[in-house]
């Protein structure tokens, strides 16, 4: 491991890569503050730039800097304006905004900065410890297991979607898989579902799909409902210091939430949003008496918990991405797409084949966390100014960057028509409460899923591999359980509720 760290240090601490980390953090923070642009859209926008760099290490370093910065920037606007720019920082606004209204905005931002820093750093240490172990296990996997593992990943994403949403999430996953089959398949080179259109020959571009699923609907929502982005400038920011007693109060919270957030982040489909909400809920339950009542009215613990957890989860979500090649969230799914475009295949071979990529990314996470801390503390008052850009300017620019993101990669105006069409469909799906991240994950995993499936089918001359390889069978059974469990539990809860009513 020490050798790896040294390789990583040597690669990450070149002047160019250091500039990339700083640049990524600054861009991520600035755009993350804009309501409606989450890490997913920002990374999607940055992908053409990252691919333009050419070197996969630098590109990944830039993108992970952007990722951290975006989560961080989102917390700034949650605290100052109660306008979470990112879903993962919604829980931050529960206690952050009340603190800002009480005139403690400076203190709130400082706590957020320190909690994020600690969460990110502790989780990176955990990543260094657990990633190699996970990747040794992963080396035992063959194409049959890969196929089964991806099925597990996709069902986990659906299963963690929340009560009453499992069916919808599954539906979106299947839709994503279907969109992934458009174009030429890898095994046969036969064009499928192209309806004779040349533009569809190579399939849909994933940047276009990512933009259409996330950035466009958000921008349209901002247009339709101005209250969604309450961009009135907040009060003054004073008193950055926190007292020793306060530091002692939040230290155990940070410790607990770093661990919890990291392991939630490792699970496919959970990610920063769930980690932050769960972190907030757990800390509120643990807190005693008076402290518990303070939650929601400006409790420093209530602010530190989600901030630590969401940054730790961001780091955690890199574990399945880097070691198994399975993205745990929409954001890492986009990162996976970028990696493939850069000719790097994440998976168990990544650590042995390209250790410099792997370790440089981990080292740059430390650097990124440090840069964010330095960036956030003194610049907070100035950073907040960007939120005062009037929406009449902001929204056309968001739309323009969305369009540019997919145009630059393809240089093809048809791509923009596809983007707008998908964007409108995605907006309607959002209205009907359908989750869109499973669609994108399904789309990106679809090709790999089919390749591994086809390879296993050819090796075993049919569906025999499901029964002949015990691990495959176990994984597929796990997938079925994951999908059925939520509805079983919901039914049992309903039955029990009915039983109680009968007893009365």
């Amino acid at each position, binding site marked *: 491991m020490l050798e790896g760290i040294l390789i990583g240090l040597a690669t990450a601490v070149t002047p160019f890569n250091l500039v990339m980390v700083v640049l990524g953090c600054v861009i991520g923070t600035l755009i993350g503050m804009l309501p409606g642009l989450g890490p997913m859209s920002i990374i999607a926008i940055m992908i053409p730039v990252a691919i333009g760099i050419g070197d996969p290490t630098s590109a990944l370093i830039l993108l992970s800097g952007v990722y951290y910065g975006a989560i961080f920037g989102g917390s700034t606007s949650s605290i100052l304006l109660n306008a979470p720019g990112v879903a993962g920082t919604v829980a931050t606004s529960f206690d952050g905004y009340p603190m800002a209204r009480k005139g403690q905005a400076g203190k709130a931002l400082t706590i957020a900065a320190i909690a994020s820093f600690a969460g990110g750093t502790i989780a990176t240490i955990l990543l260094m410890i657990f990633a190699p172990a996970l990747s040794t296990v992963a080396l035992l996997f063959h194409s049959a297991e890969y196929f089964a593992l991806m099925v597990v990943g996709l069902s986990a994403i659906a299963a963690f979607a929340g009560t009453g949403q499992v069916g*919808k999430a599954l539906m979106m996953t*299947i839709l994503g898989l279907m969109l992934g*089959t458009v174009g030429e398949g890898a095994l046969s080179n036969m064009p499928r579902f192209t309806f004779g259109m040349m533009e569809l020959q190579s399939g849909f571009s994933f940047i276009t799909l990512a933009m259409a699923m996330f950035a466009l609907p958000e921008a349209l929502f901002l247009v339709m409902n101005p209250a969604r982005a309450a961009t009135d400038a907040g009060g003054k920011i004073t008193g950055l210091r926190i007292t020793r007693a306060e530091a002692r109060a939040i230290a155990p919270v940070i410790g607990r939430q770093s661990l919890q957030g990291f392991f939630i982040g490792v699970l496919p489909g959970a990610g920063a949003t769930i980690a932050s909400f769960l972190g907030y809920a757990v800390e509120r339950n643990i807190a005693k008496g008076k402290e518990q009542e303070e939650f929601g009215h400006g409790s420093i613990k209530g602010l530190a918990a989600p901030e630590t957890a969401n940054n730790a989860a961001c780091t955690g979500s890199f574990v399945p991405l880097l070691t198994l090649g399975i993205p745990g969230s929409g954001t890492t799914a986009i990162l996976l797409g970028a990696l493939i475009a850069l000719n790097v295949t994440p998976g168990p071979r990544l650590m042995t084949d390209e250790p410099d990529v792997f370790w440089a990314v981990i080292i740059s996470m430390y650097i990124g966390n440090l840069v964010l801390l330095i960036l956030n503390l003194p610049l907070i008052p100035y950073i907040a100014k960007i939120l005062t850009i009037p929406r009449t300017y902001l929204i056309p620019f968001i739309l323009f960057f969305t369009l540019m993101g997919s145009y630059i990669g393809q240089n093809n105006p048809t791509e923009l028509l596809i983007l707008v069409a998908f964007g409108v469909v995605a907006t309607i799906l959002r209205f009907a409460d359908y989750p869109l991240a499973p669609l994108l994950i399904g789309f990106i995993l679809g090709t790999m899923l089919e390749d591994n499936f086809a390879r296993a*089918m050819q090796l075993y001359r049919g569906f025999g591999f499901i029964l002949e390889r015990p691990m495959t069978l176990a994984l597929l059974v796990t997938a079925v359980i994951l999908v059925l469990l939520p509805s079983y539990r919901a039914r049992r809860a309903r039955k029990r509720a009915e039983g109680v009513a009968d007893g009365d």
Partner: protein
Amino acid sequence: MTLDRWIALAFIAFCCVYGYAAFFTMDQSLPRILQRNPVWPSTFPKMLAVAGIIVGLIVLFTAKSKAGQQTEKTDGVMDITRLGEYRIGQALALVALMLAYALALRPLGFLGSTVLFLVLGAMILGERRLQVLVPVAVLAAGSIWYLVQEVLGIFLRPWPAFLL
């Protein structure tokens, strides 16, 4: 019937079309030699079509309307029942503008169509101060073009087609 059920129904219809293409039209062009393979290009789509129809039917018959559960309506949350209060017109106008931008990008060139897009987009949203708007749009379009073309080396046709 609520919107999510309509979507489930549309999804089932989509699966039927997709499944029809996979089951009946795709294998016709398959060479004889590939037909001896255990897996055909249409195998995976066939499985997807069947799974899609099953899941679609489940959602269609089990989806519950959330109207009763969500009583608290905050400003930031989007809700289909309040569609009438939203500025649909502006959103549709912007969608139309994006389509126009896509069609104009080649014939008008990047700089011209981008400046027009930014200016018209802001005007749809109610901005009227052209003396601020136009310089901002020109500056933004110019600097983005410089960044993409000169720094990143990706070709973007700056001027209308008849000039270059």
